[in-house]
């Protein structure tokens, strides 16, 4: 197996999911690194939106914040939060990449709290930020997260951000924009997608060096399985070089 860590693997896998000419709303960290890598490899015309207002910049180095100056470096527009979120709501943004402390079989995410109750949580997390917004408005939501049964849970303690809610048609009937929803879940062990009817998570491809058992052992709910499960292609040497030398030379993200 080539020499790369879990984070590098996930970022390189995620970067391949974006096609040229698409639009993507990203947060800081792995999502932004994936979008930057995608731009430098397969999708030079990828249009990146940051929730604080940066639109289509030439990102010179990893932003620390989705609102810092790197997000508007040589940008086509420096706008505001409503502008970006409403562009998503109008259906102009194809993808978003998110993370979360917990994810369930319908792709719902928790980034609000764990344990205790609402007014006195055991562990308070940041809350939605723009995650619920991006996941509601963008056509296809993707998640980058480590495969771990404490993260992949039967039931999120708090649904911060919508996936397919309770599955089936529930997302659409709730009032969320028609045709939108979770698309791919990218972990260090596999790529998951969603079964079209039940909207349950299923294994789509397994990363080199991992087995189906590894994936299932590190997931707190029963995963479905696509008709054909392939092997996820490993990161290319060039992608790793770009990631390490140009995108995240100080290892803010890939050093985690």
């Amino acid at each position, binding site marked *: 197996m080539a020499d790369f860590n879990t984070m590098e693997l996930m970022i390189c896998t995620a970067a391949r999911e974006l096609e040229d000419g698409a639009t993507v709303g990203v947060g*800081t*960290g792995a999502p932004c690194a994936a979008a930057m890598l995608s731009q430098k490899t397969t999708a030079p015309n990828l249009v990146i939106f940051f*929730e*604080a*207002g*940066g639109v289509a910049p*030439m990102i*010179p*180095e*990893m*932003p*620390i*914040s*989705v*609102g*810092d*100056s790197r997000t*508007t*470096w*040589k940008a086509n527009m*420096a*706008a*505001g*939060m*409503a502008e970006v*979120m409403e562009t998503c*709501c109008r259906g102009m943004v194809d993808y978003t990449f998110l993370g979360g402390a917990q994810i369930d079989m319908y792709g*719902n995410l928790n980034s*609000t709290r764990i344990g*205790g109750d*609402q*007014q*006195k*949580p055991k*562990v*308070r*997390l*940041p*809350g*939605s*930020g*723009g*995650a*619920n*917004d991006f996941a*509601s*408005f963008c056509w296809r939501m993707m998640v980058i997260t480590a495969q771990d049964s404490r993260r992949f849970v039967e039931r999120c303690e*708090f*649904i*911060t*951000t*919508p996936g397919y*809610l309770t599955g089936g048609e*529930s*997302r659409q009937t*709730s*009032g*969320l*924009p028609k045709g939108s929803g979770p698309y791919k879940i990218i972990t260090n062990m596999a790529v998951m997608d969603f079964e079209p009817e039940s909207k349950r998570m299923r294994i789509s491809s397994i990363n080199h060096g991992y087995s189906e058992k590894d994936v299932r052992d590190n997931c707190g709910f029963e995963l479905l399985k696509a008709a054909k499960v392939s092997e996820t292609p490993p990161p290319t040497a060039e992608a790793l070089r770009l990631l390490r030398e140009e995108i995240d030379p100080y290892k*803010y993200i890939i050093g985690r």
Partner: protein
Amino acid sequence: MDVIEEGIGRLFTDPDPDKAREFFRKKSRELKNKLTTVTDAVKTLLNDGDYFAIGGFGANRIPTAICHEILRQKKKNLAFAGHTSTHDFQILAAGKVFSKCDIAYIIGLEARGLSANARRYMESGEVEVTEWTNYAMAARLKAAAMGISFIPIRNMMGTDTFKYSASKKIKCPYTGDNYVLAPALYPDFAAIHVHEADVYGNCRIKGITIADLELARASKRLVITCERIISNDQIRNDPSLTVIPFYLVDAVCEVPYGSYPGNMPYEYFSDEEHLREWLTVEKDPEDLKKFLDKNIYGVKEFSEYVELNGGLKKMQELRDKEFLVKNKNAKK
């Protein structure tokens, strides 16, 4: 208008535009000199118990001087708009100035990690919270800025974020589809840091505006801190650049490096070392106390804080960093 479902969170402010109109009717519209000090602005415009909001995006273009002054003046029982808040939230939580909080994003400093102290405060049970999202909060300010009581939005549906919010869900009479209604948010007080303002309060901002244009319009009382005062003639020579007009503004304070240790686009980058120091000292309440005494409670005004942390030499380094002077990937 039938409500299908509603959140159980508390609404900390009144969304009634007619009540806001009564306030705005009496607010001065005069083109008058509003230059004052941060100390006086906070003293006269922010009262204990007020609902307040801070402009910028957490550690980008924030009015740090105002946040520090709120601590020094020991304001209490405030309600805070925890919207795109990071370092500002960290400061305010350190002073325990608020006891109610609308939450969209709190306690984190994005890629930098989480504030241990802010987290402790939010886990203590001392703060009553209502959940929202970044866009929902922006929409609430937008509704207020438009002088209406609500705006329909298409997010939050089906989630616990909705359940613990104070929003309501209805059906659109045109399409039959469900919408969440974001109730108007009229803060009593807001502070926004900008690049340039004249003494009347006409403001210019470079780079992203986040939710500040909506915030400026929604707020009953507004303090502007700015990097530089410019003349009203300059404003009038290019009125297209005015993004916050004078009649929204109650006080103007010139505070160079006023977003420090945050990033000010086109001026200086964030001081990552100093922000790391904040995150480190917060792990131990005693260390934090000493740190706050040194950096906030023990200083009279913001310029002292800048001096304590490297002064002009540091500011020059942060300017270099902002303009990527040493970055080989950045096309100049």
